[in-house]
């Protein structure tokens, strides 16, 4: 049987081992496949097992299953991410009102604790599946694919066009986890400061659209929006950006249109 292994320079190969020690391409094995030479800059006396597995592979497989299940119901899914207090829930409530009669939406509500946001959305007449990450998930600061999967059967997917996943408020962890979404919406509030794309590049890089929310506050802030845009462009060249305010309604119609454009043409 061939033995699959990788080298420090990144090359990966497989070869059969006979019953003699041998050497090739700058390293050596004995008949059991033990390294007897220096393979990748480390040397210990033990047996090395090459693994080469993506750490989030299991999450990604579950995310793919979620994506397939959503697709089989004809549902499009948007992962909505932001820091705490950027206005995700208020924006989603506004969107729920504006999408009424145009698209049937459901929400997966991710929170560490409480049903406060879920209650606000349910009051807007939207089916909501709450995932408290403190319940069985150890108080996680993000939703992962398994948590979203646990919410699937609690949503009437056959009666929905669009599922909005309100992720846990956090600019770091949610960006690392594919949950089976079709697109990512990031909500940024200008009170957070224009340097944030530089400090949280993974989140800003992963967003298909950045909604700069609470723009009604801009006259009261020293924030430099042009600078924010330049920082966003730096970490995510060509990033799409939209100015919104859940309070005044500015930009919310455009945001609703962006969501509707994700749906299959009927």
């Amino acid at each position, binding site marked *: 049987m061939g033995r699959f292994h990788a080298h420090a320079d990144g090359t990966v190969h497989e070869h059969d081992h006979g019953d003699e020690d041998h050497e090739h391409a700058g390293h050596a094995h004995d008949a059991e496949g033990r390294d007897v030479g220096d393979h990748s800059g480390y040397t210990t006396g033990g047996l090395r097992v090459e693994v080469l597995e993506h750490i989030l*592979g299991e999450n990604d497989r579950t995310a793919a299953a979620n994506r397939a299940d959503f697709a089989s119901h004809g549902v499009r899914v948007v992962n909505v991410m932001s820091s705490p207090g950027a206005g995700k829930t208020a924006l989603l409530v506004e969107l729920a009102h504006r999408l009424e009669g145009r698209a049937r939406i459901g929400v997966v509500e991710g929170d560490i604790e409480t049903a406060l946001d879920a209650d606000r959305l349910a009051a807007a007449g939207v089916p909501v599946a709450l995932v408290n990450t403190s319940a069985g998930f150890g108080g*996680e600061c993000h939703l992962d694919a398994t948590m979203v999967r646990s919410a699937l059967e609690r949503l009437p997917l056959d009666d929905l066009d669009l599922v909005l996943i309100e992720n846990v408020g956090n600019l770091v962890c949610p960006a690392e986890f594919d949950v089976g979404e079709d697109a990512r919406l990031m909500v940024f509030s200008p009170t957070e400061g224009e340097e944030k794309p530089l400090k949280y590049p993974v989140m800003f890089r992963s967003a298909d659209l950045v909604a700069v929310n609470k723009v009604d506050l801009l006259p009261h802030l020293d924030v430099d929006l042009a600078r924010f845009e330049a920082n966003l462009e730096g970490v995510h060249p060509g990033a799409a950006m939209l100015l919104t305010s859940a309070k005044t309604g500015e930009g919310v119609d455009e945001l609703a249109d962006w969501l509707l454009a994700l749906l299959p043409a009927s």
Partner: protein
Amino acid sequence: MHELSICAAIAGIVEQHAEGRPVEIVRIDVGHLRQVVPETLQYSWELVVADTPLAGSVLEVNHVPLVVRCDACGESTELDTAVLRCPCGSTDVTLTSGEELLVRSLELVDA
């Protein structure tokens, strides 16, 4: 603190590959763009594997630099910040490393 989730995922992968054999070192590759704090990861590893057959194993984190290849001038450059710009001024670049998150190998206890 996604380091705990990441460690749980690593432990699952390691258990499959170790097949019950005692593990001394777990070597992982973490790209510069991954927002993982190596010290937090190592601390989380101790928490996650405590009271499991992996208790006592060491997590070795290999930092993989952020490298871009410029599509304009063709040069490859290692970057310190996540602003993806070639020193020639072009932002027309392709990431060639920096997003890794990989269990690379295990070192088993020499029997």
